[in-house]
């Protein structure tokens, strides 16, 4: 059903059209949601279409490194939004290793994000002094070191959770990881006594950010004098782009490595894989730890960006959100994970919210809808209709619809689409 014979030129035309239209529109009207969506479509098409690699690289670079930062200077919310997309994309890539490659359904993935975020939040704020004494927060420069420390702490937690959980079969694993995710959240919420480690429900704030004097100097030296409030959004935007690049590279290398093939073998048939001499537990643990490490690094970025962490950011809904991204994009597909993350984040943070605001505008307009046989005063529109409240409903529909009609995802990995349609 998914023909591979797309002609190279045929795909490029809509891509170029979207890229040019989106870029101009976004630069002229940086506040427009629609313009951003067209720009995003262009970026995603660049990612999705195959062929003409050099042109696509150039196009992607212009869209990501020139157009968006320029528009973001006028409307820094664009940078916030893309940073958020980037954080989720990196996590989707991590979960993709666990669910997509190794076939292990992890429903507690947000726990690793939490561990990463708390790793920096505790030491990058005065919190650590509450149970260690000494002088905290650490200077913001340690942020870069903690990007790596979080890789280690979250990978360790991944192994710790994985050791008991990964002995179980697929569906039991799902519910145990769900439980473990909840345990991590409850611990974060309760470890304010007897020893105050996480500050419990009060959360930790403010959290140190890396010093970026060098970055604003750098911008200044190329003639860009920007207001101070734009420095950090721009810095985080570029940092997240860099991290996604790295994580993607690791992902690509891994999926083509012997370890990656062992993961796929386990996903396909555990018994056969064991018969071939693949050590099941160790291989699965590697997948768990790798996925966890990606999430942990982004947790550090998240903590520094938000300046605040509290247990409420790491609920089951977060885990399912990331799972939805992976499923939408296509299990096992690297490009799919990024595309899925972008679509779900934009839907959640931008489209649903915009619709809610549109409802509010309708309500305040005082207009009356008159269909002849039926009159409706728009100011009576219930606030309960606002779609932004119903993110669970939206994720649920995406998950079910994808599983029924397109289980291989929007951008399937070649292997998955063969496998999932075998029985037809």
């Amino acid at each position: 059903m998914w023909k591979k014979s797309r002609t190279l030129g045929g795909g490029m035309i809509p891509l170029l059209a979207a890229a040019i239209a989106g870029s101009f529109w976004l630069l002229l009207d940086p506040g427009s949601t629609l313009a951003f969506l067209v720009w995003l479509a262009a970026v995603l098409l660049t990612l999705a279409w195959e062929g003409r690699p050099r042109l696509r690289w150039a196009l992607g670079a212009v869209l990501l490194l020139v157009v968006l930062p320029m528009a973001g200077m006028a409307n820094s919310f664009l940078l916030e939004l893309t940073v958020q997309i980037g954080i989720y994309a990196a996590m989707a890539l991590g979960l993709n290793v666990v669910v997509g490659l190794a076939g292990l359904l992890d429903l507690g993935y947000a726990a690793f994000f939490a561990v990463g975020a708390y790793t920096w939040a505790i030491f990058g704020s005065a919190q650590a002094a509450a149970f260690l004494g000494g002088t905290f927060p650490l200077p913001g420069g340690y942020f870069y070191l903690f990007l790596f420390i979080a890789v280690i702490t979250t990978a360790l937690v991944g192994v710790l959770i994985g050791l008991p959980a990964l002995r179980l079969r697929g569906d039991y694993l799902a519910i145990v990881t769900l439980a473990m995710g909840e345990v991590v959240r409850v611990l974060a919420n309760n470890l304010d006594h007897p020893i105050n480690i996480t500050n419990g429900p009060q959360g930790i704030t403010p959290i140190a950010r890396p010093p970026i004097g060098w970055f604003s100097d750098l911008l200044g030296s190329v003639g860009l004098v920007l207001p101070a409030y734009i420095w950090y959004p721009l810095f985080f935007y570029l940092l997240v782009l860099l991290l996604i690049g790295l994580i993607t590279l690791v992902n690509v290398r891994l999926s083509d490595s012997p370890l990656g093939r062992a993961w796929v073998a386990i996903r396909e048939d555990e018994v056969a894989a064991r018969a071939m001499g693949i050590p099941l537990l160790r291989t699965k643990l590697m997948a768990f730890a790798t996925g966890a490490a990606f999430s942990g690094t982004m947790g550090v970025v998240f903590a520094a960006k938000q300046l605040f962490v509290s247990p409420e950011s790491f609920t089951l809904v977060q885990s399912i959100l990331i799972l939805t991204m992976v499923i939408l994009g296509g299990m096992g597909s690297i490009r799919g994970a990024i595309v899925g993350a972008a679509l779900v984040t934009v839907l959640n943070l931008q489209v649903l919210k915009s619709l809610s605001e549109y409802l509010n505008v309708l309500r305040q307009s005082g207009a009356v809808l008159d269909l002849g046989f039926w009159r409706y005063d728009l100011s009576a529109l219930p606030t309960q209709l606002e779609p932004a409240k119903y993110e669970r409903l939206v994720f649920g529909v995406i998950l079910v619809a994808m599983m029924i009609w397109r289980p291989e995802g929007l951008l399937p990995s070649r292997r998955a689409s063969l496998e999932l349609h075998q029985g037809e």
Partner: protein
Amino acid sequence: MAIIVRRLAIGLLVSGMALLAMPLGAEETRTIKLAVVSPLSGEIAQMGEMIKLGVQLAVEELGPELAARGLRLELAPQDDQANPDVGTGIARRLVNDADVMGVVGHLNSGVAIPASEIYKDYSLVMVSPANTATIVTDRGYATVNRVCGRDDVQGPAGAEFAANTLHVKKIFVVHDKTAYGQGVAQAFAEASRKKGLRVLGFVGTEERANFQPLVLQMRALNPDLVYFGGTYAQAAVLVKQMRDRRIKALYMSDDAIDSEGFVRIAGPAARDVYYTTVAGPSSEFPAAKAFGERFTKRFHRRPEGYAIYAYDAAHVIIAAIRQAGPDRAAIAQAVRHMELEGITGKIAFDDKGDRRLADYFIIHLPEGTYPGKVVRKIAMPAPPRGH
């Protein structure tokens, strides 16, 4: 069916286009927005809705005053779902909307604290009608203010009443594991200890339905008074299950149960409950009677809880916009130096954004009906910085 859908779609489209066309037609008046952020859905939506309606009334009544400055004030209500993640997301949207000149909000301190970190960076002024956690203003941000009192006064006021008027000796303290509930419960417990009361237990719970483990602990420890730090949905179920199991201890809670919803859920168990609040009922303020009538006329329901405080918070921002014009930094400065006679009395802020003189109330529900009776009213200055 299809025809109806199409007609509906066309109707929506036409009205949408009419809206888009509107600002183009009226070029000389600039539209600015006053945001109100509170939970409009979820467990404590009823309290959040009151904040929204209070601000809405203020915008409708006081907004036209800005016409002299060539400004048209619009209300931008936002639903933070009592969730810090959603709240910071909304904060980021608001600061990047150049038309938003001020924020009234939030209801939950746990949401207000991270959100105000964002408002601060963009000089967007926030006036809170309801956040009582001490850290909200203790950070000393120039953009963060509140028209209500603080937990480090509210908690001790409750403890003082429990010790000296109710004459209890042993207390059992429960909180809901949120930044707000835990904070106020801690302030209450500490002040009680200082008054020589015995704190038999200090327990947090996220539970919403089954409070039996807590009730059984109360049975084992036999306290004279149970204090709950948290919001009404849980407070009501807890007291109901206590009374079901014949726990006779007095029950006291905080300003977040100041809602008709508490009485509705608790039923007969709401009888004889005490709570402290920083938002007095309308009957306490001379100017509030007329406000109550206007409110009821406009929204067909009685104002509750924070409605008047939300109105006053909006009043402060609107007055500041009139002074300073559509300039965020100037508005924030004007708010900090504003002095005006609100419905809840004289409003003026100290150097960290606390109201100079805030009222604290102790309210009793002798019959288990809402609203209750004010048994004590205390006016207290905000503690100075770093106290």
